[in-house]
């Protein structure tokens, strides 16, 4: 082994660079230009990367570590359903026993964290219209069979759902199967008609025996224009919301149901 001699070391390093330069000069011109371009591009990319990639990227995984803190810092919107029990124990109790026991309070009442902190300032809304409930109960082919579904357009229209179903303890109300048990078609058309809330018995006096021996005991049927006019004549009193006609001049030569099917009346 030779002794270490700084002079020979230097000259051999110098020789290395000289050879490198000669090599480089012998490269075709194209390669030189492309190498320079490549070096510039690589340098630009590496600089951009160090500047753009957040310093804490990859600390825990393929994401920014501080993203976790940012998410933690976001305001909490939902309170969960347990805290409601503290003040609304009555509601919670009813709900716990009913069909909606697994439906969270905030699904219907919206995010409630703010409400639990200041009950006076932040009032929650209750879905009292007909829009809320069908989000879950509207008929959809993809909902599991057996899940209670309705077609809201024909399921007791106009009236709000909570008029018949208790939101916190919904039960399917007893069906008034009385007339519809046998006159289903009529009942169904009437249910979506303007006469939906006019009871069958308002127009037909049906003896109880009719249900046992329908052919022998026939209910009454309205017998003339006067009957309908009882609600619809413009002289009729206390009938707000009912469309009015003048019985004396409105198509006076015919009975009303020659033109208006009584179970699905339309005005055309």
């Amino acid at each position, binding site marked *: 082994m030779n002794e270490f001699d700084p002079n020979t070391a230097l000259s051999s390093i110098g020789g290395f660079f000289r050879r490198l330069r000669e090599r480089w000069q012998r490269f075709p*011109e*194209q390669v030189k*230009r492309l190498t320079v371009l490549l070096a510039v591009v690589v340098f630009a990319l590496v600089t951009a990367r160090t500047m753009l990639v957040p310093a804490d990227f990859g600390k825990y995984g393929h994401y920014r570590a501080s993203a976790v803190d940012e998410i933690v810092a976001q305001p909490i919107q939902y309170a969960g359903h347990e805290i409601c029990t503290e003040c609304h124990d009555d509601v919670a109790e009813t709900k716990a026993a009913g069909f909606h026991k697994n439906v969270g309070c905030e699904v219907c009442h919206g995010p409630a964290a703010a409400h639990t902190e200041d009950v006076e300032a932040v009032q929650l809304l209750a879905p009292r219209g007909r829009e809320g409930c069908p989000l879950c109960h509207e008929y959809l*082919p*993809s909902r599991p069979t057996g899940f209670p579904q309705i077609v809201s357009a024909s399921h007791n229209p106009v009236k709000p759902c909570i008029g018949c179903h208790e939101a916190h303890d919904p039960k399917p109300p007893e069906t008034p199967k009385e007339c519809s048990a046998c006159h289903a078609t009529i009942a169904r058309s009437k249910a979506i008609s303007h006469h939906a809330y006019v009871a069958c018995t308002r127009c037909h006096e049906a003896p109880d025996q009719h249900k046992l021996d329908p052919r022998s005991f026939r209910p009454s049927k309205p017998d003339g224009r006067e009957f309908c006019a009882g609600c619809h004549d413009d002289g009729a009193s206390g009938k707000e919301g009912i469309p009015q006609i003048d019985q004396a001049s409105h198509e006076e030569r015919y009975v009303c149901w020659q033109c208006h099917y009584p179970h699905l009346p339309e005005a055309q």
Partner: protein
Amino acid sequence: MEELIQHLAPLVKEVVGYIYPNEIELHWGLLVVVYPYVTGLVAGAFILASLVKIFNVTELQPTYRMSLLTALAFLLVAPLPLLAHLGHPEKSFAIFFTPNTRSAMAMFGFVYAWYLMAVLLLEIWFCYRKDLILWAKQERGLRKLLHRIMSLFSSDVSERALRFDQKAVKAVTLIGIPSAFLLHGYVGFIFGSIKANPWWSSVLMPIVFLFSAIVSGIALVLLIYMIATPLRGKEMDMACLNKLASYLFYAMIIDFSLEILDFIHRVYESEESIEILAALVTGKLFISLIVVQLLLGMLLPLGAIAMAKMLQMPSDLKKMIYFVAALLVQVGIFSTRWNVVVGGQLFSKSFSGLTVYKTTFLGLEGLLVSMGLLLLPFLILYVLFALLPPWEESKVSLEGS
């Protein structure tokens, strides 16, 4: 919420059978159809150029540079549909800076970048370098400057340098062919590797994608050649057209066989999905798959080209046939992409129901944007043709300057 319900309500009515709630709305729409279509054109056009170079097909020389520029124009547009679909183009750099090696989709960014930088731009640069230098010598003003920059201020036109250029082009082409296969095979791979979807999940997918890409690329170059040449007031080279048509024909035969193979394989395997797929093919995809893709896009052009090859006919009629066949092939390949992307999402993973897809006209995912993205490459191509004329007569010889 209200808006969403209004959008979904009419779709629900057209659902057949049982589908899961998250299957009503398709996640990959028209833009994702445009994307593999455009990438396919890139790969196809490039592979055509490579064939010309590697096998020295003299008839096809007039289309060599044209194919390269076509590939470049479409490659520049290829990522745009994805960026528009993902909705946050300004964040896309993160894909490159924080590479996620476990995501096939994320790694595609690198395949794309490799193909653009290491293959296409390099080959074009070597191919045009001499002309760029010579053009710049005769020009002045902005054009001169542009050509100087494009040549990277290179000036060596010695015998040795030119020989090096040619060797480099050959070498890049050699790397380029597998890269082009990779580029489009990759798109097929992304679909083919989705285990949960029987319409996609198939090892043949990358290969089928690749060959349909070659078909569409050749047809595109044929179309561009047939449109650009008369526009420049030049005569079309019939030998070149015939050769292109032959290549198109062979590629289509392979593509067709692969698709049939895939079909037979599925029918013979007869997995549990076969019934819903049969319902899909004979129902919602009947027009786009059987009529457009198979009859109009494959069998009709195949028959037409075969006729043109076998029968004696005036060359004008031949040109007409080639042109119409190439157009039909484009429509056919586009519907191939449609049938893969949209078709794969039309049936429920429960295998017992079908949903529908409706495109909107406006909006980022709409028809208008997609049409814009399909037109954009032609605009770029126009600019490229102006800057880097690929025509024979634009080449300047050393002695002339």
